[in-house]
């Protein structure tokens, strides 16, 4: 707060403030919005006249996030007949928002951390760049707010101008060059005196005293309180009353998860890709094609919201992702959503030193590659039906450049009018302009892919995610275990390590592959070729044979293959084990690997979760505090073995 001395402060009369606002409204370049009434409540909305402005409001129904991440937003328009006539949607014209409270300004600064990271959200960025924020210090404290406890009732940054009501006049603190210019151009004002500056500080101190709702735990302590109470009965108990209405996430200024869907016009000629607010309390948030729902229990979903705000994001970014606005407390009918109440309930419980146990650091920093939403155009070169359920595709990017992936990474395959699906790259890295994928038919995108032919156009975003650190595997034995369609991403790694140039960098390679039944085993011919390479051992097993199958190989689960492997201690320390398969497989296979003496730090897995954005924004893929699309899908087992949601 002492900093306000260093900022330029002006004084403006109430009447001149009205004139200033009216001048802004008249100046057509900007779309001027501000706080006004809606029935018994307040909202941000377009201003026609300064007289509508209610700077004495307590809290608005929705935070100003609606201007940066609108509830419904067109990411792009496309034509279905000419799939690559995509038009990136225009973002709104420059806007001035008047009357933003400090906690909402801080919430926007937090959103910046997520949306303006190394994979910038272009739409969000454009809106941030062309919006001017005129804040106002709180004049009336909302009954549900605990902003003072969160130290978000005042702010020194994030605004272009900040208004403070001084009884008969307003002080205007200048926060940016843009704000200063605006003020100079449209307002009549005088410089603030020492007395005025003192008064501002008094006003701000006084605001803090008006909050009735208070935290019993400092916000710095949330992370450690939550880390210690993950299994506390409070989550189950409080969630009993949850109606799963999602309101707590919709109204929250620091909830920014979203869903994406394609809508097409009724003549099937054009369409748009729309993003819309989503929330982790809603059950389908984590639903995947196979019908599986991660965090299926309402108790777990309810808990997730508090952990995301109080532990996961704090560990990742260093701030508590709740600004104490109290909106969730107002919106939640059974009154169970307020973080202040929950944390206070936990206040007399244990703290944990290890606050970061639900979070790991991202390994590969994915390079910024143009826009994050608009796919690159690509063409199907070759297709091959592998089994009843799986189809192979060779795809070439239309710019004829190599995809540039590393094994274990994935791409978002986009079909306009249908949607996107994350699909692993199945071919090894190469300098050729095409790459390969294998798709299992489960839902809309995958079924549509099955009907596509060579020459058809697709969209590709990627490569995305964290792949295998093949360098760190050098001079080691490799034990590769693939179950079911886990062989699809594994093939990329195998192709890389058995490549003439790379083979000598690795010691013995053992490939274990378990399929449900012979008719479902993929890449059998390639498998046989791999077996012929020096010091590459391969074992294939099927869970069962149905009558009529011509099968001479092993039968039994993949776990029956491990007892055949003999490793001495030296070997197990020097073996890297990689496991990719359906969720159920990991627990059993990892037990076998542990029996072989392979340390957890030498085990790598690739996990699947529901994905939408693939770039750490939409929130769908989270395992506790970890984004599978960024820190994964490839993980070191040692990093995630203690994440409660990893192998549920």
């Amino acid at each position, binding site marked *: 707060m002492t900093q306000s001395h260093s900022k330029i402060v002006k004084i403006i009369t109430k009447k001149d403030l009205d004139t200033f606002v009216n001048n802004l409204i008249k100046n057509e370049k900007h779309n001027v919005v501000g706080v006004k009434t*809606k*029935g*018994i*409540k307040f*909202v941000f909305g377009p201003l026609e006249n300064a007289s509508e402005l209610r700077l004495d409001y307590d809290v608005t*129904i*929705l935070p100003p996030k*609606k201007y940066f991440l609108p*509830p*419904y937003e067109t990411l792009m328009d496309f034509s279905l007949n000419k799939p690559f006539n995509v038009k990136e949607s225009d973002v709104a014209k420059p806007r001035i928002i008047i009357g933003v409270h400090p906690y909402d300004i801080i919430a926007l600064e937090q959103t910046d951390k997520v949306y303006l990271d190394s994979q910038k959200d272009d739409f969000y960025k454009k809106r941030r760049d062309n919006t001017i924020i005129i804040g106002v210090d709180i004049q009336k404290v909302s009954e549900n707010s605990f902003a003072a406890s969160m130290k978000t009732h005042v702010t020194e940054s994030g605004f272009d101008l900040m208004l403070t009501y001084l009884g008969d006049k307003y002080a205007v603190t200048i926060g940016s060059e843009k704000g200063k210019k605006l003020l100079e151009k449209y307002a009549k004002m005088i410089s603030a005196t020492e007395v005025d500056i003192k008064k501002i500080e008094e006003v701000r101190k006084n605001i803090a005293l008006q909050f009735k709702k208070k935290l019993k735990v400092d916000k710095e302590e949330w992370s450690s309180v939550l880390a210690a109470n993950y299994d506390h009965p409070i989550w189950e108990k409080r969630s*009993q*009353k949850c*109606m*799963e*209405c*999602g*309101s707590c996430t*919709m*109204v929250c200024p620091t909830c920014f998860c979203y869903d994406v*869907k394609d*809508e*097409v*016009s*009724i*003549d*099937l000629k054009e369409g748009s890709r729309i993003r*819309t*607010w989503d*929330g982790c309390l*809603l*059950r*389908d948030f984590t639903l995947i094609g196979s019908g599986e729902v991660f965090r*299926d*229990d309402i108790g777990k979903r309810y808990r997730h919201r508090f952990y995301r705000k109080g532990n996961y994001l704090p560990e990742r970014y260093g701030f508590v992702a709740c600004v104490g606005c109290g909106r969730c407390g107002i*919106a939640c*009918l*059974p*009154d169970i959503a307020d973080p202040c109440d929950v944390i206070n309930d936990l206040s007399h419980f244990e703290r944990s030193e290890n606050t970061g146990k639900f979070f790991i650091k991202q390994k590969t920093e994915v390079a910024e590659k143009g826009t994050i939403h608009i796919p690159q155009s690509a063409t199907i070169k070759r297709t091959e039906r592998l089994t009843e359920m799986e189809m192979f595709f060779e795809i070439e990017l239309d710019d004829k450049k190599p995809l540039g992936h590393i094994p274990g990474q994935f791409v978002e395959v986009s079909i306009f*009018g*249908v949607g996107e699906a994350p699909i692993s790259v199945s071919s090894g890295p190469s300098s050729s302009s095409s790459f390969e994928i294998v798709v299992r038919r489960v*839902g*809309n995108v995958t*079924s*549509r892919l099955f*009907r596509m032919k060579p020459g058809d156009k697709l969209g590709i975003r990627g490569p995305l995610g964290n792949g295998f650190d093949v360098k760190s595997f050098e001079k080691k034995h490799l034990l590769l275990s693939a179950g079911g369609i886990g062989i699809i991403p594994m093939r990329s790694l195998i192709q890389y390590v058995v490549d003439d140039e790379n083979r000598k960098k690795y010691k013995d390679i053992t490939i274990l592959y378990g399929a449900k039944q012979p008719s479902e085993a993929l890449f059998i011919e390639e498998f046989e070729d791999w077996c012929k390479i020096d010091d590459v051992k391969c074992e294939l097993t099927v869970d069962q044979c149905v009558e009529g199958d011509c099968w001479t190989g092993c039968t039994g689960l993949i776990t029956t293959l491990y007892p055949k492997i003999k490793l001495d201690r030296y070997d197990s320390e020097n073996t890297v084990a990689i496991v990719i398969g359906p969720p159920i497989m990991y627990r059993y296979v990892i037990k076998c690997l542990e029996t072989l003496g392979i340390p957890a730090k030498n085990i790598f897995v690739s996990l699947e979760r529901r994905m939408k954005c693939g770039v750490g924004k939409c929130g769908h893929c989270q395992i506790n505090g970890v984004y599978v699309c960024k820190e994964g899908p490839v993980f070191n087992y040692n990093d995630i073995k203690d994440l409660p949601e990893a192998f549920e």
Partner: protein
Amino acid sequence: MKTRVAFFDFSSCEGCQLQIANLEEEILDLIEIVDVVSFREVMKEHSNEYDIAVIEGSIMRPMDEHRLRKIRSRCKILVALGACATTGGINKIRNQWPVENVIKEVYKDADIKDNEFFNAFQTKAVNEVIPVDYYIHGCPINRDEFKHVITSLALGKKPVIPTYPVCVECKKNENVCLFELGKYCLGPITRAGCNAICPTNGSPCDGCRGILSKPDVECVMEILQRYDLTYEELKSRCTLYNTNVFNPKDGMTLVRRSKND
């Protein structure tokens, strides 16, 4: 060949078919992408060859059941259209009373014995008789959702119908929550997809798109108390579409949502 679509009506006000007929210009686009082979609301011709059957209305009589089974056997995809078809809708109000009493009350002493047109049973939703592939909920339906379902089917994809409640859309519209105005609203437990049209226009949601989950009784009682509402208020909200959920006769029969709901 274009996908052939046929529309059929059972016991309903035909309001939902009217919503479609009211698509006006867009109806021309619709017949560009599909062949409408039967649609009493807008055309005289009728054909028994179709891929998609769209059923409006509830099933009230054995003869309806028979006709519905026949339709099911002829089509590949069956879509239930409107609350009457998807949940039984307002036609289910009468299920509170025994059928005989209802018939007596309506037809008094008229001679309807042995006339199959008057041979009614308890109202059924379409899926209580035959399997339904897709639902277009609402009373009446939302035209945009109808377009979404038809374009999806024409493109060979599964339509996506929201599984989240009306509150989500209501909040996106930034409405003042009706509870704060002293009204009981079924938004938190009703399937969204109507863009929260009722609360957005100031009236509470009556749950016409079907109930998603049933919150536990204790929780509902607390909410009533918190917002100074009466049990009467809750009851009146449920008499239109959800007498089966909140039974006004036996008091509250709310139960905790089950995992598979």
